[in-house]
């Protein structure tokens, strides 16, 4: 566990526990699909400036919960807020404007745009994105140049500077994950939500991805990510939230959660062969 997790050292490892400085608070969030209750989260808080992992067996509702929080799905009931601002019923693009950006389990790189175009798309408040202003190049030329510069810097940081003019569709799975993360940073989010950032990434890239995620925390951003791989969770997260069958069943520092019999049960219920702590 990292030192920055110390702020939570005094926090009890139990579901729905209050945190000293929560940035995201969700209350009574429910989502039905037909007769199935996919998400039923009573209360959960995410601490500012830390890396929080959201784990759970397949079908636990992690991705659906992500979708609800970021406006990509509509909850049947519940309230949730980001930094004091209610996000309930807010459209996905407006959620992004409040300072949360998410990525997707299946990467959504824009195949037939180049890497640099992908990056530039992420910048917010672009004057040239208005229909009328778009016609008058001088109105946005300077801003575009600044955006491109920032995009290039971010690409360098993710060691992708040399790929700027390649089509995103030609990148490998891991490179797409990196691109998606870098593109999310173009929005300059205060919180970034990653849905299975390691899925489909070859081991050589995994370490660099992890390093990038830790760097986000160093920059002062809050990170929440969905992950299956317990090793990854141990390595980088400050706090772990466990979901099963739609509800939060446990919370706590990684080592505490890993030893929680409820968590082991939840995993064993669906994955008899899963040895917690080993990569799948």
């Amino acid at each position: 566990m990292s030192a920055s997790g110390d702020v939570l050292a005094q926090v009890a490892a139990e579901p729905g526990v209050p945190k000293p400085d929560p940035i995201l608070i969700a209350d009574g969030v429910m989502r039905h699909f037909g007769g199935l209750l996919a998400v039923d989260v009573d209360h959960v808080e995410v601490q500012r400036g830390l890396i929080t992992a959201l784990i759970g067996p397949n079908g636990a509702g992690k991705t659906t919960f992500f979708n609800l929080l970021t406006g990509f799905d509509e909850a049947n009931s519940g309230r949730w807020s980001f930094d004091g601002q209610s996000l309930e019923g807010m459209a996905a693009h407006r959620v992004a404007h409040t300072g949360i950006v998410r990525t997707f389990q299946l990467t959504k790189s824009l195949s037939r745009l180049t890497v640099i175009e992908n990056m530039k798309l992420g910048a917010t408040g672009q004057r040239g994105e208005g229909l009328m202003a778009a016609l008058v190049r001088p109105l946005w030329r300077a801003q575009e140049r600044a955006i491109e510069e920032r995009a290039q810097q971010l690409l360098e940081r993710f060691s992708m500077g040399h790929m700027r003019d390649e089509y995103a569709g030609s990148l490998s799975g891991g490179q797409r994950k990196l691109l998606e993360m870098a593109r999310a940073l173009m929005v300059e989010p205060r919180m970034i939500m990653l849905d299975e950032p390691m899925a489909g990434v070859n081991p050589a890239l995994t370490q660099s991805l992890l390093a990038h995620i830790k760097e986000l925390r160093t920059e002062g951003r809050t990170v929440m990510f969905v992950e299956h791989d317990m090793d990854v969770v141990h390595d980088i997260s400050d706090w772990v939230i466990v979901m099963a069958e739609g509800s939060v069943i446990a919370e706590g520092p990684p080592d505490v959660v890993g030893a929680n019999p409820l968590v082991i049960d939840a995993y064993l219920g669906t994955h008899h062969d899963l040895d917690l702590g080993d990569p799948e």
Partner: protein
Amino acid sequence: MHVAMLRRLTKGGRVVRKLLGGLFVALVVWFAATPSANADGEEITGFVRNEVTKDGKAVREPVPNVKIAISSLDGGSVGVATTDETGKFSQPVPGPGDYVAEIDQTSLPKDVALRQAGQAKLTVNIRPGESQILNYFLGKDTRATKGRWGILPQTLANGVKSSMIIAVCAVGLSLIYGTTGLSNFAHGELVTLGAIVAWNMNQQVGLHVLLAAPIGIAAAAIAGLANERLLWRPLRHKGTSLTSMMIISIGLGIGVRYVYLYFFGGRAKAFRQYAVQKAHDFGPFSLTSRDLVTIGLCLVLLVGFAMYLLRTRMGKAIRAVSDNPDLASATGIDADHVILLVWGLGGALAGLGGILLGLDQQVRWDSGFSLLLLMFAAITLGGLGNPFGALAGAFVIGMFVELWTWIFPSVVELKTLGALATLILVLLVRPQGLLGRKERTG
């Protein structure tokens, strides 16, 4: 050129050549016998007469001063003919081809209307040197005398008939969507094919309708199988996107439709048997034997098909592939085989639907296309890909279409407008369909 690409191109080329070749041969065979004359003086002529009862006898009186507008198929006006004292009109046309004859209903005397509302606007095919005779019969405007509520039962009875035909045509469309995800915009052409082949067998070859119909159905089934085997399966295996496949089906549909127009002509043509029938009076409404057989046959077939899907191994396999193709193939079901079967069955049902539609409203080159959007409405309302939903959807759509004419009785084309408006309403109000579960659509 890259070798693999070359191979793919030649392979695909063979596929298309086969497909087009087969189509061409089939068309040549039917139409080789069609005679054509050559002389001058093409015209459209005919009478407008009013059927009245005089001294207890039915007599036909000529109706003067009725205007009939003749225009070319692309809309250019040819002229407006007016009936003389004997009720006769004639309008020379510039040459052979397809024309539209539209009777100006405002020029009719008061209180009378066309006996057959469908005659208000007719497409007429003029062959070289031939003239076409159009006879219009008027009668008391029964709609006015019977009263709005009085004709409601008849409207509903017609609705049942329409919905049965829509359902039979749409089952295949729904199953194809369910098993492959393709919105087949060329499905209407399978419907028309059944009708045209049966019509040719009936009118050109001289077979009785009951013998001609199975041939038409077989032709549509074979066309369905050929569609899948020669076109859609190779495309699917190539990984062609659904959007591309949808556009391909549109192109195919347009091409085939105009091939029909080319050979069949633009005029509506009736079958030799069962074209004119006396209606049985059931009190508030009346139906002809043809209508009754249509409804009965469709009901039996639809129920039978539902049983087939529910009870038999193959039927269950179809539903499994419809539900989840990947899972189905994982359990050992040969998805390609199932899809081929679906195309065959869907084609046969579409062909039958086309023949029934042709018996009801005559055969036209675009019979099936005119039904296509209604079929889409039905299967969408039923929840895309759900064959039982398609039946329910067809029932609602068929009823709705007839009810539109009841609500707005005076303008014929409102029937189509009503159908289109219904389709849009359906998609807006219940995009997930009647039986479908709500899912996020964007």
